[in-house]
């Protein structure tokens, strides 16, 4: 009996370790803040190159394990933003970005671990809001 429990636990751990994690971050691009968040150092250079602002602050983030095919994952990113992710096949994801009741964008992407999808900008004052969707193993 103990052996059976150990085997089941090992199997569960193996499945959990194999599952990819998807993360969505809400980023504020600004020129008035002081410095870029350390949490964004992995894409800070690309953000600056693409959006032109000096500093990037992470306003919120949602993270979850990528579900099975056709199962939806909901990530609350903060500030009223929600992301729905539905795997559709090997690396294929259907992504819906919502702000409040409004669907800001609906996209299908091929995302592999280490890849980023940046969506935006949403103008707020002098700043921009950007959503960053990424997959990690």
């Amino acid at each position: 009996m103990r052996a059976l429990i150990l085997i089941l636990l090992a199997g569960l751990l193996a499945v959990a370790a194999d599952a990819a994690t998807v993360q969505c971050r809400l980023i504020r691009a600004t020129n008035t803040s002081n410095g870029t968040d350390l949490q964004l150092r992995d894409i800070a250079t690309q953000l600056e190159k693409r959006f032109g602002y000096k500093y990037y602050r992470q306003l919120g983030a949602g993270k979850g394990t990528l579900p099975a095919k056709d199962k939806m994952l909901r990530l609350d990113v903060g500030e009223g933003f929600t992301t729905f992710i539905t795997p559709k096949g090997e690396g294929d994801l259907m992504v819906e970005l919502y702000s409040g009741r409004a669907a800001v964008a609906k996209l299908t992407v091929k995302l592999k671990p280490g890849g980023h999808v940046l969506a935006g900008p949403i103008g707020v004052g002098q700043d921009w809001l950007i959503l960053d969707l990424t997959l990690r193993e």
Partner: protein
Amino acid sequence: MSHPKPEWLAAWADGELRGWRRWLVERHAQNCPACAAECRHQRHVRELLRQHQRPVTMRESPEFFWAQVRAEIERRETVPAPVPADSRYPLQLATVLAAIIVVVGWIWVAGPPRQDRAQGPVPAARPGLAVVETVNTPIPNTAATVLPAEEPHIAVVWISGLPWTRDMDEMMTVYADLES
């Protein structure tokens, strides 16, 4: 009697004739009514010009004008002299020939790749880690475009036409009521 040259008469009228030419012109004019008339005419014209001389006025002060002149001189000195078209081609030809010689020399020295030379793995082209296949924006009057990929692991979806708000509170209010 030969008349003096007209330029001698003009020089005499200007007061620039010296020596034996001056003596010759004056002596001739005493005995030649035509040349004497010409001398008087020349002197008269010069007198008229002197009396009706237009005063030279400058828009700028002399110092400013000279500063401009000096700046223009310096500018012209720094501009490289134009190279005649014919002499440019030999320079280019020499550059191309030098490049060919260097490349041929390099191949000659390096020789063909040896089979026993350690060969590292050829880096494979990095496949796209993020590729956006379709995108749409249900909010009216907005448009979404996938920007050309500059890096294989970053895809950018540019959404234009979204409502602009003054601050986060207004943004949350506006987007909460926004239909899509």
